């Protein structure tokens, strides 16, 4: 390869553009993003509201196609994928964690995790090694509760467990601490860092909070649909 792309990079993005069409108006959400992320990296993304952070995640995670540009995730080019192929990719290649936890409200924590296993196409019961992850997340004792019986921090840690139960190449966390108090935020951020350090999980994390961003190996700053600097 002679285009400067490192083969160890699990994410390679070149001149990515995304334009939403709202009525007759084009809303450019991403205006030429270049980004490489190494395997095993914990990357923080920070930027003002509307700068395109979530849009970037949605594209990397295959929830929406790019308008133009090249997006290679885990060796697969997303810009060439059909809807169905992106759906398949979401099963195993990426895991999402959202600001609003997004657990299924009628299912216990355990069943929320099992649903992800089931959709991912594996046996609904996680492997025995997953017990270790649950201990690390500190939710092993809370698995038989439904989300409304769990604290925000616990819900978010269940959501993290669900996101990684299929061993995705990348974990995408969109403001995972946005709805949490300081104490719970700290717990979740430490869990993410532990997953990264101990299991080598590649993690991209959006945050508004510079303190949270400091948990990352590096930080990308976004503004008006572009990456302005990487520190």
């Amino acid at each position: 390869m002679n285009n400067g792309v490192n083969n160890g990079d699990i994410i390679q993005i070149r001149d990515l553009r995304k334009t939403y069409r709202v009525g007759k108006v084009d809303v450019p959400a991403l205006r030429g993003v270049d980004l490489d992320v190494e395997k095993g990296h914990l990357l923080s993304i920070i930027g003002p509201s509307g700068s395109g952070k979530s849009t970037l995640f949605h594209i990397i995670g295959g929830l929406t196609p790019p308008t133009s540009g090249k997006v290679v995730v885990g060796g697969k080019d997303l810009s060439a994928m059909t809807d169905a192929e992106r759906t398949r990719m979401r099963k195993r290649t990426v895991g999402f964690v959202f600001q609003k936890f997004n657990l299924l409200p009628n299912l216990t924590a355990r069943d929320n995790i099992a649903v992800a296993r089931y959709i991912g196409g594996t046996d609904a019961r996680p492997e025995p090694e997953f017990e270790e992850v649950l201990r690390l997340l500190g939710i092993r004792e809370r698995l038989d509760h439904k989300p409304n019986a769990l604290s925000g921090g616990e819900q978010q840690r269940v959501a993290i467990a669900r996101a990684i139960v299929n061993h995705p190449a990348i974990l995408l966390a969109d403001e995972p601490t946005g709805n949490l108090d300081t104490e719970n935020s700290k717990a979740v951020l430490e869990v993410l860092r532990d997953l990264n350090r101990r299991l080598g999980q590649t993690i991209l994390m959006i945050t508004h909070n510079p303190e949270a961003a400091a948990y990352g190996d590096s930080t990308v700053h976004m503004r008006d649909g572009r990456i302005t600097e990487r520190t």
Partner: protein
Amino acid sequence: MRSLLSILLIGVPVTLILCLVGLSHGFIEDSQKRARGIGADILMRPKTSSFLSLNGAPIPQQLVAYIAKQPHVKMATGVFSVAAEGITLGATGINYHEFAQMSGGFRFLSGGPFQKPDDVIFDDYYANQTQSHVGDTITLLNSKWHVCGIMESGKLSHIVLPIDTLQERTGNQGNVNQIYIRVDDPANTQAAIRSLKDNPGLEGYPIFSMEEFTSLLNVNNIPALAGFIAVVMGIGVVIGFAVVCLSMYMAVLQRTREIGILKSLGASKSFILGIILSEAFFLGLGGTILGIVMSYGAAALIHALKPASLPMIIVYEWWPITGAITVAGALLGALYPGLTAAAHDPIEALSYE
């Protein structure tokens, strides 16, 4: 809550279908049983009658004696039947002596045979239904009658009257509208029928063996009924379809966000569609089961109120039929909401409040 209401709404037409089918089968079975209880081998009916209705020119009563003299015929008796209440309940005038000889007589639960010209015999069903007892005076066919006996049901009719009085009071002197014939040996039934049919004096009268006649009594031979059942079934399907469509559409709206979550986890369109369809399947199944349960309730109610006029039975063969139709309607109804859900944009669904 939404599901329970849907199941109830789906169950109601299921009950309706099952009641309709149960009533028509019950009516037929009841008629067949009573026809078999007569003890006749051959039946002759008025010239222009259909096998379900006795409309048309009656049969002159003199023919009874004539038929009794034909080959193989052991005895014949004429009866005169009229509609007592709607089309499902008839009253029949008989020559008590002749009829008792043919059928082996009634089994009386109380009272006994006619003593006076204005006596009437009820069967236990009709006596229960009307709360009548021996000794009561009742009004039937616009005249007064005196209940002289209550018999066990299953023979000829629910209401039995002396034929002379009935003929007189309805202005049908000298007429009968069915002649029951007993042959010397059941093996000679066909031979007797042939000779009766060949007899020029009886030309044009429909003559059946009792066996043939009871087998003609079935649901498919009642002209309007099959069509009516089809219409009620159609209504059932439409209701099932509409209920499930609305209910699942609501469900899809309510769970937009959850659908988004499943999609973010990698659920495919067919997976989402599958969830909606399987829920609709269970709604349809639940509705069918509830409908069946309610049909038992309806049968019990009808049995308590009108056992003689509306003999309803439970027809098991119709359970899978109504079930399949209801489930098919439900699945069809879930298709549109299901496809809508499957087509949801995951990002929009996730940001749905």
